């Protein structure tokens, strides 16, 4: 009875992963699929590890795509959750409508999110340029997605807009599970708002934050859509990340063997992270549901 799902899983995840491992030791080309590739040992890996471009791609993925966007979402998500949970918003009866509006970016498909932001950030007449010029903050329009100084912050903005709601709602629920007695007790003891946050609220929220961080890293590190649709890895290859590198090397440069070796590097990194997740999160959970 488990055969159907394992049929799909084996031929979709299992066999391709193994065949990718083998291909990474060959010079397989997209033009010579029928002929197959020659076995060339570790040459792809040597080429990859000795290429300066690869380290730049790696840095882009690790720092800009993942680290910056994940930290930003955690911080903003927490701030937004605190805002939505504040007494002021409740008193003004704005908490519910805020939560509802929060669902809007989340329900927007990533591909559409990128499209609309490309329009907002358009380098000639986009809304953001218009607004900044209207406020007198800039003289000439900025090509947000083509200028190397601002292209990464622009991509990160798109990612944050699309995925911040999920982080916020998760943290908001975490906040609402903080026992009120704890906060009251802290207040009786004369703790200010800041102290209460760092000594009561944040420690209570920490497990949620850690799990969220781990999941965000998983989702973002491997992500292809945001960068590819926003800039196509450009200008030039300035915003190239591992996911787009795999696609470009395989389907534009036709070097499937090399592309596979990039994939294996990525798989290795994800496997380490996967083990951490499995060990500290998933196992505990299985005990509860199996």
């Amino acid at each position, binding site marked *: 009875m488990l055969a159907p*799902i394992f049929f799909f899983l084996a031929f979709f995840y299992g066999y*391709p992963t193994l065949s990718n491992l083998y291909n990474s030791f060959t010079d397989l080309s997209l033009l010579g699929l029928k002929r197959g590739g020659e076995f060339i040992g570790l040459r792809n890996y040597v080429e990859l590890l000795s290429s300066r471009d690869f380290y730049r791609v790696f840095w882009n993925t690790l720092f800009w795509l993942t680290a910056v966007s994940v930290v930003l979402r955690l911080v903003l998500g927490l701030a937004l959750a605190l805002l939505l949970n*504040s007494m002021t918003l409740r008193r003004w009866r704005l908490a519910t409508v805020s939560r509802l509006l929060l669902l*809007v970016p989340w329900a927007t*498909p990533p591909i559409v999110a990128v499209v*609309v932001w490309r329009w907002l950030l358009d380098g000639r007449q986009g809304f953001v340029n218009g607004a900044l010029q209207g406020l007198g903050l800039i003289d000439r329009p900025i090509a947000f997605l083509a200028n190397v100084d601002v292209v990464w912050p622009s991509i990160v903005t798109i990612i944050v807009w699309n995925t911040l709601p999920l982080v916020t*709602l998760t943290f908001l629920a975490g906040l*609402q599970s903080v026992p009120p007695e704890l906060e009251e007790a802290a207040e009786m003891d004369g703790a200010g708002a800041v102290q209460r946050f760092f000594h009561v609220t944040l420690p209570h929220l920490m497990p949620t934050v850690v799990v969220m961080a781990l999941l965000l890293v998983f989702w973002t590190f491997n992500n292809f859509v945001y960068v590819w649709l926003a800039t196509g890895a450009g200008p030039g290859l300035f915003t190239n990340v591992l996911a787009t590198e795999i696609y470009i090397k395989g389907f534009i440069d036709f070097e499937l063997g090399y592309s596979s070796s990039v994939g294996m590097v990525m798989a290795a990194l994800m496997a380490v992270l996967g083990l951490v997740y499995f060990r500290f999160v998933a196992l505990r959970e299985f005990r509860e549901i*199996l």
Partner: protein
Amino acid sequence: MSRDANQAVATPEGNPDPQPVSIRRNPLTTAVILAATFVVWTFLVFPAVWIFVGSFKTNETMFSATAFTFTLENYATIFRVGFGRFIFNSLFICLVAVVISTFVSVIASYVFSRKRFRRKRLLFGAVILGQLFPWIILVTPLFIMFARIGLLNSHAGMIFSYVAISIPFSVYLLVGYLETVPRELDEAAVMDGCSQFRIIWTIIFPVMLPGIVATATYAFLLMWTEFLFALAFLTRTSLKTMPLGLAQFFGEQSIDWGAIMAASAVTTLPALVLFLPLQTKLSAGLTAGSVKG
């Protein structure tokens, strides 16, 4: 998805009780909080609203914040250049894939939830880890595999892929849901000598229906907006799905923003309509994989 995060996502709708924490009515603080709220609202909603507003604007007024000339021309354009075909392809692939993936996942979740067998946790773990598997790594080897067995440029290949990407979280969600269904229900049927499939069909399926609908909806949304596999496996225009059709409007020379906004609106609307009711009763782990791509 962790237990903590799950419950976290599940509760905000259901816990409206204000906590009696420090009520100080400092007008300055209030003003700052309200101002921040409106800034946040604008940031959240403005881009999405513009998809719909822009889709009814002419290309001349597309970039103007004030000028607005109502037109349906953009919608006419996208259907003239064959967007209807993409909609049909997407609907066909996604609906077939949802039915298959839900069917096999319901059976598997019953087995994982009710049966005892060796290496159960390991197998379950293998299924669940599929949720975290980087799709981009699979694109190249799957492309080669599909090329060799003739599944490139075929809806069958896409259906296979979409079933496979939704199985891990479907099984996970359904197992979680089955835990809320009393075991006595189906154990009694086992005593009576009912066959496995009869138990699943006549007992499990009806009580699980809300969970199945939520899971299937979620799977549909995931497939509906999937871009990467479609990009790699579908190159023939007549077979392409909506996300590809949408991306196609970004031409080399010019960008028809009106058409893009109309196509975006058509892509987003079903997502909104399906997502909002789903979110209100969002249960365990529905968030897992939602930002993959």
